[in-house]
């Protein structure tokens, strides 16, 4: 009986301690900084082996200008390789980081010279500089979902393109 009396308060104390240490899924500013540093090494230096350290295997990337979502590390790897081929001197800098719970928000500037083909477009030799925002959801220290936002039109205009109105087949025939 005496032993029981000793154990009960101990159990209560333990419960109390666990309650205090509520398991937090949130990422810390330090963890976010490490992930950003690695992302920059991946994009700016082409250090693609780091991808598996920072992303979960079923990671999803929602990208502007691309209709399908990129799912899995391999799809993202191909996407980065294509980007680095189009802009071999690619240099991304981080302007600001906001961390909240399991989400990170990165504000960045993208600079590069288009000396390789971009998607189906031939190289233009032009320099681009534009800003964007990336939101990343992190689970167990790894990126699981990425949303990327930038003004694709701005980038294409810097590359020397402009928007042309649609040419319906009827009007083309009328012109003939």
């Amino acid at each position, binding site marked *: 009986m005496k032993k029981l009396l000793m154990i*009960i308060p101990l159990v209560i104390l333990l419960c109390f301690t666990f309650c*205090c240490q509520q398991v937090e899924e949130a990422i810390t500013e330090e963890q976010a900084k490490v992930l950003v540093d690695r992302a920059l090494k991946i994009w700016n230096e082409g250090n693609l082996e780091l991808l598996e350290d920072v992303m979960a295997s079923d990671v999803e990337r929602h990208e502007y*200008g691309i209709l399908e979502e990129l799912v899995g590390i391999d799809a993202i790897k191909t996407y980065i390789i294509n980007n680095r081929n189009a802009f071999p001197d690619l240099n991304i800098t981080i302007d600001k980081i906001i*961390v*909240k*719970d399991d989400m990170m928000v990165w504000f960045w500037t993208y600079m590069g010279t288009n000396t390789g083909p971009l998607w189906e477009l031939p190289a233009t030799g032009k320099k681009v500089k534009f800003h964007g925002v990336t939101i990343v959801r992190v689970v167990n220290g790894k990126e699981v979902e990425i949303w990327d936002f930038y*003004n694709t039109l701005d980038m294409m205009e810097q590359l020397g393109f402009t*928007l042309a109105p649609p040419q*319906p087949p009827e009007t083309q025939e009328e012109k003939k």
Partner: protein
Amino acid sequence: MKKLCMILPLALILCFIVGCQDKGAMAELEQFKVKAEVEEQNKEIIRRWIEEVNKENFEQLFNELWAEDCIQYMNSNPEPIDNEQYNQMIEHFYSNFPATTHEIHNIIAKEDKVIAMFTARTTHDVDSYGVPATGKELAWRAIVIFQISDGKIQTRWEVADILSMYKQLGMELKPKESEK
């Protein structure tokens, strides 16, 4: 002896609880609560703005939620626009896409900032940017970062996928005339 055995652990627990609730920690917790409350209020302001705004209530909702001296950076343009320019922009936008609605996918509040990802949807039922109505449904994504002071929206940065919007209208990217 048995009674002492009962009282001692109880006293210990009490000490522990009181120890945990030191005033510094309580004040910090209170501050944290206030901060969390403001973040929730800010989120609600932004949720209302994005999801409720339409062609008819635009002016009234804008006057209610935005600070008079607010500043807006649209589509990563480094030069901000003032209210007059913004009003012209909105008028132009609604004349091209009168039936636009917005759906928020994700909203994050941190201190005085609110970050919202949303999809804009509209029906191409009038002449839009020079393209005759097709009746097609269009959708494009955007992100907006708001900075809120004293319950009013003070600054907005927005990046919308307008290239995708124009492409859905049937426009195409072509090399500029001078560069052909």
